[in-house]
Every structure is written in C-alpha cells, then in structure tokens.
C-alpha cells in the first residue's frame, strides 16, 4: 500500500511541560495546527504510524550508538521524563512487532538498521503522540536517527534512509503514515535555550516544502552548529521525511518561534495525492 501520510512536527518538551508560560495567542494557534494534523492523520486511516525521531539518550548511548534504529515490539512505554515536568502521564503505547518486523526487513534492503524489541519513549515521541494520537490507539513504529552523539548520521544517509522507509511502506499491505519530529534551529537544554534563528528555519522549511534534495543536503555540521545550534542536527529527521515523500511538495501549516518552547514550533505536511 502506498504511503498514506507524511509530515513533520516539533517535539520540544516545553510544548507540553511549559504550556502555561507561553503567549496564549501564538501557543493556541500552534496547538490548533497540531490538532488539524491529527485530523488529517486520522483521515488517512493509517494501520501504523512510523515516528522518525531524534531520541535524547532514552535508549541509546555512546557505548553502542546506532546510526539508524527501528522498534520492533507490541508495546512501548513512556515518557522516561518526570511526568509532571513533561506534562504527560506515563503509559503504555501500542506497537506491532509483526508490522515492525516486516517493515524492518524491507528497510534493510536499502539501509543498515539496528532493531530494538525494547524502547522507552522520551519527549521526542511522546509530545507528538500527545497531540496526534491522544487515544494511544494506533500502533507506533519508533525510528531513531543519531542526531545526538557525534559522529552523527551523514545527511545524505538520512535521505537514503527516507527512501528505504518509503520503499518499505509501499511494499507492505498495511496503510503506513510517516511523521518526523524534531526542532529546526535551537539550542536546547542550555543557557541559550530560547535562542531561535527564525530566518534559518524558514529557509530550511522552504527547501523542505520544495522537496529539493540538493538544497536539503547542502549543509554541514559545523555551519549547522554555528547557525542553528546543536538542536539543528535534528534536521536529519525532516530530511528523511522529505525523501520518504518522494518528490511530493509540502505545506507549512505553522512555523513561528515560541522561545519558552525553545524552537520555531512547526507543523508541516506533504501532499501525497499528486
């Protein structure tokens, strides 16, 4: 079954954990965009949702850091963070070992991946799910790209990984949705938190909407670090989604800075109908 949905969204922990500290006007418009994404996702009737995230040392550490990893379990748990701090209660999240196993087998034809029968979700997955599958009633396939522990996954490999994901989605009989999560420019969890390079973000999202492979890969880690912070390394997840969309054009539904959330809060989708 061809891919039924592709989009990207922010996952910063402040989105749920520091909600009351944001300007309510911009915050509520952001939440409304998130909710519309939920409606669009539900309309696509996915049998499973692939969440491509940049996890933050919830499962993988520098003793054995995978370039790419995919979950393969019937259930997951999260968040690992203090529930009061994140604003999301601990719970079990449904997966599907069966769909994951077949999905991973197909992805492996194009990309080398690690698989994991255990996976604890952190804010990188829990915050998007809080908005997009609030009933926790759709099987999730968690995916990670190493955006945290250098040496990081090269950008062109993230693109190739996205192509492998698309090929797998198209091969499986199930209806699969792909959602990538991450920040664009941000300096998270440092005293610089709240610093946002809005111009850089809008330029990146323009490249993303055009689905311009050459432009999306025209970054290097040193300049990303300088212009977009260590959080900017998470563009890998957005790049993988672009490749999975296979030439489709995107629309940014929301992309505005909310400093207390530490990012340009973003919701964007690809039109797969063309």
């Amino acid at each position: 079954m061809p891919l039924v949905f592709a989009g990207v969204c922010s996952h910063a922990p402040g989105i749920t954990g520091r909600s009351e500290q944001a300007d309510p006007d911009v915050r509520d418009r952001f939440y409304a965009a998130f909710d519309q994404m939920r409606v669009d996702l539900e309309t696509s009737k996915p049998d499973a949702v692939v969440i491509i995230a940049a996890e933050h040392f919830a499962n993988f550490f520098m003793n054995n850091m995978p370039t790419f990893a995919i979950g393969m379990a019937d259930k997951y748990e999260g968040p690992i963070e203090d529930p009061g701090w994140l604003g999301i209660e601990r719970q079990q999240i449904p997966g599907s070992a069966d769909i994951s196993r077949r999905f991973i087998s197909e992805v492996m034809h194009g990309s080398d991946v690690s698989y994991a029968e255990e996976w604890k979700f952190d804010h990188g997955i829990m915050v998007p799910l809080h908005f997009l599958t609030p009933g926790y009633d759709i099987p999730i396939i968690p995916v990670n790209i190493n955006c945290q522990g250098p040496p990081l996954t090269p950008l062109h490999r993230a693109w190739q990984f996205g192509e492998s994901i698309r090929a797998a989605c198209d091969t499986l009989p199930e209806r699969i949705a792909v959602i990538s999560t991450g920040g664009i420019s941000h300096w998270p969890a440092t005293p610089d938190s709240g610093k946002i390079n809005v111009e850089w973000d809008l330029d990146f999202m323009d490249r993303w909407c055009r689905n311009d492979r050459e432009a999306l890969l025209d970054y290097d880690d040193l300049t990303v670090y300088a212009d977009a912070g260590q959080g900017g390394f998470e563009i890998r997840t957005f790049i993988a989604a672009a490749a999975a969309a296979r030439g489709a054009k995107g629309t940014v539904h929301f992309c505005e800075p909310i400093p207390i959330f530490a990012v340009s809060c973003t919701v964007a989708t690809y039109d797969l109908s063309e």
Partner: protein
Amino acid sequence: MSLYAVQKFLYELNRSEQMQARYTADQATELAPFDLTDEETTALTGPDIGKLFHLGVNGQILMHFAAFHQIEWKDYLQRMRDGIAEHGPVREGVYAMTTGLTEHVVQKATIQEATIESRSS
C-alpha cells in the same frame, strides 16, 4: 576526568524508575560501579547542575537529571549560567554556551510572560 562515565551514570539513572528509587535511598552504592573522580561525584550528589554543565554533560542528559531533582526550568537555566560564571567555559562536548553571561536568551520568554500578566491585569 571521565565525562563518559558521568554521562553513562546519568543515562542509566534517567531511564530507570527503579534506579532512581535506589539512588534516592543510597547514592554511594549506585555511583560505585562508575569510574568517577571526586570532582564528578561531588557534582552529581550535590547536585551541582552548573558544575556538571561546565564538565560537558550533554544538555539532553542533564535536563532530565534536573527534572528528576524537581528543578524548575528557569532555575535550571540559571544554575548552568552560574556554573559557567564560577568554573569557566564548558570543557568539552557540543553542549557549549554561545551567549554571554548577561545575555539571558530566555528573557524573550520572560517578556512574553510580562505581556501575559499585563493582559490579565
């Protein structure tokens, strides 16, 4: 200096409620398996968030540790800033500080809060 061991300990602690309970009851026993210097052990048991940031602990790991200690967000940011003022720049890693000591980036958010307060008053 063993930043790897400090971060490994925090990684293990952050993802395990069971270890958090044991650590709350007996810090020394939980820290014992990790090859830590006295400086690192003192920073962890404090907890001295500013010192840990100065040592180079990845912010994503440190942020979760601060949440475990119920440290409020802006207090967490200030403790890191204080750590840099007292100990100097981040020693290693990619989670350095790029702004000046008096350049409170989150001040933008504070401005937003002031706006909210003025709207509600």
